[in-house]
Each structure stands twice: as structure tokens, then as C-alpha cells.
């Protein structure tokens, strides 16, 4: 059944000391606006407005929350607070910064920094399959600095994907949208559907979710790196559990990228969470090791490839 989408607040609408410029994105739990503060600085404002529990029709400002859903709505608000609390404590150049938090229109708002840039998703789409190894290593190593900070606050991101990795104008990455982080706190609240993105969610995201851990975010990191090379998301983990048809990076891009990078991607994408890097630190360490440029393969014939491998081994 099609779920009715919530209407965004109109452009130019004043909200506390901010004025809404336009809507940036619309999700199942929230709407994000671009707005201008009193000092003229641009900010992103996230409005808590779960689609299934609160409804704002066209032209309205106050959402309609039925008495039946009020309990669940308030519960979700608690989770929104958790996200705010977690982010407020995180002050890291690679993690989105929360600037303010306020209550209005019977719901709550989180104000975050906004900078010009684009998401990694947009970057991938633009550079379809032509992303250099240096770029990938550079972006992911710095992004992992942010993720390390997140994990060190006992928080999991749980919805890591290229569209949640924002690139500033100078290509420094920023982790955004911690909306799924709530899931660590509420696994048995069926009212709020678990959030995950097929292709980037780890196998632990599906099912009972009791095995979720840093390794689950690491799976998503692997999937995001895979997407950088492939130009699209890898096969979804639940599908892979049934029938794994994901071509390992090692085979798909053999020779085009360093063996080490491809190895790392496959390592992260292991279906068994115990076989993945167990911490961001371990993964980062592997990523910053000396880069060995790919050796140009003169003969594409499969037999010669094996011969080359043996030659390499002899060295």
C-alpha cells in the first residue's frame, strides 16, 4: 500500500530563529531542510516526523498525530533525542556537527551544520566507474576517522552508505544521518520499522539483529567501497545469504586496482561477521599500508594471468 508522504514546511517558513530555504530530503522518519540562521549562515534542519505515525497535509503546519499513535510517536521522539544526544557529544571533523535542538509544531528539530558539497553517492553517479584508488583510499581513511569516533562513543551508525557520506568542497568526508543509530536501542519496537538500505546493510541487519556490532558498519564500508568501483550497490546481504552471486572485488577488478585494496573490500564484505575486520582501527591500518600500484597486465589471457601470479610468488 502506498504510504502517504508528509508535506514539507513551505519555503520561507520561519522556524525559531531560522528561515526555511527549501527541503533537502524526505525520509521515512524525518524531513531535512536547508535553512538560514539569524547570522545568515546556512544550516540543515532535521524535523522528526515519522511517516507512519504523524501526518502533515498540504498547507498545514501542525502534523496530525492520532491518539492511537501518540505513544509510539513519543517513543520515536525518544530515539530522536538519542540521536541528538549522541551527536552532540561528537565533535569531529568527519562527523556532522549538531548546532541546536528545539521543540516546535508539536515535534522536535535538530539543527546541523551545512556546507556546500555533494554526497559520495552523487559523486559515484557522476564518475561512474572512474574513481581512482587514491581517491577511495583518501576518502575512506578519513571517513573511518569519523566512524572510529562514533564507535568509541558506543554508538553504531547502522545506515552507512554512499548517500550518507557527504563530501565537502575539498573532498573531506563527513558522516551524516545517524537516524538508524537508534536501532541499537530499540530492537523490539515493531512500530518503527528497522531501517536499512539493501546492498549496504550487513547480514546482521536482517533477522534478530542481536549480532550487530562495529563489524556491521564495516560491512557497509566494504559495500560502499565496492559501489565506488562498480558504480552501483552490491547484491543485498539477505539475497547473498540465499544465493551469493556477488563477484568478489578480487576477481572483478583484478589488475585495475591494487590487490590489497580489493582484498580489503572482500574482507569487509564477508558474510560471516567474525571474518571481517573487527574494528575500524584494524580496517584503517590495512587501508593506509603502503600502496603498491597495480602492475599492468600485458596478456589478458587467463592462463597467462596464472603464470603471472606464479611469477610474482617466486619473487
Amino acid at each position, binding site marked *: *500500500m*502506498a*504510504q*502517504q508522504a508528509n508535506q514539507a514546511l513551505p519555503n520561507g517558513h520561519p522556524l525559531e530563529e531560522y528561515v526555511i530555504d527549501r527541503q533537502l530530503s524526505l525520509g521515512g522518519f524525518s524531513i531535512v531542510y536547508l535553512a538560514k540562521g539569524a547570522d545568515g549562515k546556512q544550516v540543515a534542519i532535521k524535523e522528526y516526523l515519522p*511517516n*507512519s*505515525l504523524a*501526518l502533515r497535509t498540504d498547507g498545514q503546519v501542525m502534523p496530525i498525530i*492520532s*491518539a*492511537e*499513535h*501518540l*505513544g*509510539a*510517536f*513519543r*517513543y520515536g*521522539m*525518544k530515539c530522536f*533525542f538519542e540521536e*541528538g*544526544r549522541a551527536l*552532540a*557529544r*561528537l*565533535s569531529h571533523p568527519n562527523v556532522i*556537527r*549538531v*548546532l*541546536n*535542538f*528545539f*521543540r516546535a509544531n508539536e515535534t*522536535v528539530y535538530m539543527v546541523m551544520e551545512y556546507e556546500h558539497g555533494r554526497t559520495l553517492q552523487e559523486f559515484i553517479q557522476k564518475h561512474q566507474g572512474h574513481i581512482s584508488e587514491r581517491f577511495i583510499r583518501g576518502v575512506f581513511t578519513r571517513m573511518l576517522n569519523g566512524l572510529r569516533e562514533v564507535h568509541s562513543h558506543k554508538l553504531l551508525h547502522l545506515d552507512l552508505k554512499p548517500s550518507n557520506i557527504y563530501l565537502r568542497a575539498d573532498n573531506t568526508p563527513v558522516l551524516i544521518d545517524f537516524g538508524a543509530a537508534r536501532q541499537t536501542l530499540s530492537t*523490539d*519496537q*515493531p*512500530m*518503527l*520499522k528497522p531501517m536499512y538500505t539493501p546492498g549496504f546493510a550487513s547480514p546482521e541487519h536482517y*533477522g*534478530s539483529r542481536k549480532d550487530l556490532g562495529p563489524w556491521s558498519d564495516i560491512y557497509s564500508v566494504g559495500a560502499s567501497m565496492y559501489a565506488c568501483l562498480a558504480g552501483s550497490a552490491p547484491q543485498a546481504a539477505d539475497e547473498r545469504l540465499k544465493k551469493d552471486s556477488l563477484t568478489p572485488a578480487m576477481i572483478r577488478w583484478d589488475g585495475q586496482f591494487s590487490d590489497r585494496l580489493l582484498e580489503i573490500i572482500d574482507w569487509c564484505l564477508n558474510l560471516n561477521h567474525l571474518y571481517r575486520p573487527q574494528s575500524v582501527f584494524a580496517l584503517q591500518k590495512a587501508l593506509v599500508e603502503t600502496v603498491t600500484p597495480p602492475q599492468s597486465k600485458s596478456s589478458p589471457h587467463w592462463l597467462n594471468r596464472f603464470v603471472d601470479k606464479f611469477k610474482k610468488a617466486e619473487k
Partner: protein
Amino acid sequence: MRFTIYQESRQGGRANNEDRTSYCYSRDALLMVIADGMGGHHHGEIAAQIAVQTLADSFQREAKPSLADPFRFLQKAMNNAHHAILDYSSRRRMKDSPRTTCVACLVQDNVAYWAHAGDSRLFLMRNGRVVAQTKDHSRVRLLLEEGMITEAQAAVHPDRNKIFSCLGSPTPPEIEFSRKTPLAHGDVVLLCTDGLWGVTSGELMAVSLKGANLLQAIPMLLTQAETKGGPHGDNLSAVAVRWEEAYVDEASSAISTQTMALNEVTTRLEEFGRNPAYKSDLSDDEIERAIEEIRSTIEKYTPNK
């Protein structure tokens, strides 16, 4: 509610069948019970019968059409069953009271609640895998958990039938409760006695029940288990339900609520009101405090201010 259900009990290689099974449902709730009367004590089948009967009677009395508090219901009904067995044995001046295991599962609003005492089991199966199961109240289980013995050793352990909690014993039963477990479309809940799980693993049963017609698959499982149990095999019984609705489908659609007739909405309100999970403990004051806290944290962690 929409579901497929099947129950069957077989004697195996024993002289009599001391297993009892039962299920009953109202418009909004479903109860399944299984009890395995204990052979070491006299009249195990009587204890099992009393247990199943007491639970079914309570359900018929109270499920009109749903239960106010499923866990309270299970606790009360199982305790009543325990006392009913003791009463029975004292009336008859029996030297030793008959005893039985018991596992009961209640489904209401697409949420399952279960409780058990002893080593009859409940398995919750999803997509061919066991996603939840009860822990036997047996010595072997404890040894296994402490790592003293392996699964393989447990299967042949001489004490494997000794349990420390049951209904009808002079020591009151330890009744263990599940969590509230939302069911997904296609989930199978299987209640069975050790005659079945003792010879066929839960994982194996989950695979064979995946997508299968319970009306055929359960008899097949029982036949296989009976064969494996051999000429002196234990009684074996099962009650299984395949749930044809899902919690999320029911609860999270704003549209279906909006398009519902007024009186229907009222009914739903009642259900949610009784559902303790949706009673929010977040008051306006608490919202203000949470915002205040977040603001001061932002203040504290913002550099150069």
C-alpha cells in the same frame, strides 16, 4: 487473525500416551498448549490432562475476545494447573503427585507470548531457521551451558530426562517467560515434546517446515521421528501454527487507520491502550529536559565559543 494450525500426538513405542496437546482460539487470540506427563511418576497422563484442560478452560473464560495481559494469563493459568494437580492427588490420597511438563503459547495482535516449565519445547521458525526456542529446565541443559558437556554428550547423557521444574511437584514450578515476540508473515511456532525434538533437531525441522503445508509436514515429521525412536520410542506430540499476518503490516500504516470506519478506530485504540509497550513514559516535562540536556551538551562540546 489468519493462520494454519495442526496438532497431533502419537504413542510411539510406549504402552500409553502421556502427552496431551490442545489449542483454542477466539476472534482475537490463540492459545496452544502441550504437556508431557512424566513417566517416572504415576498417572503422568492425568497431570498432563489437567494441565492442558486448566489452560484451555481459563482461555475460554477470559479471552473475550482478547486477553488483558497475556503474560499474567499464562502465569495464572499455569499456576492454577499446578495447584489443580496437587489438589487432585491429595483428594485421592496419592503418595506421590503426578507431574507434567508444560509449554503454552499465546498469540494476540500478531505478538507471541510463551511460558514453559520442564523440557517440552517451543521453537519459533522464520525462513527455515530457528529464531527463538525455549531452554529446557533440565540438568543436562545446565551442564551444557556451563560447558561441562558437549551437544553430542548431552544427546546420550543418562540424566537427559531429569528436569528441575514441572507442574504437580511439591516444589512450586519455575515458570520461564518469553519476551513479547512480534510475528512476521509465514512464521511457524512449533510446540513439541521431547519425543520429537529428542530425535530431530530444531534446525532440521525448521528447514522441513519452511513453506510447507503443516497439515502434511507435521505428520511426516512425526512419522520420521517415530521410526527413529524405534520400538521403545517415547510418546511424541506437536502443535504447530503458521502465522499468515505480520505485525508491521497491521500496525504501521497511517492510511489504513485513516480510511477506517469510526467504530473500527475505536476498537484499535482499546487494543493499543492495553498494550503496555505503547504507553509512553515521555511527558512534556521530560521532552523539555531532554532538549535542555542536548543543548547544554552541544554548548559544552562546541569549540571556540
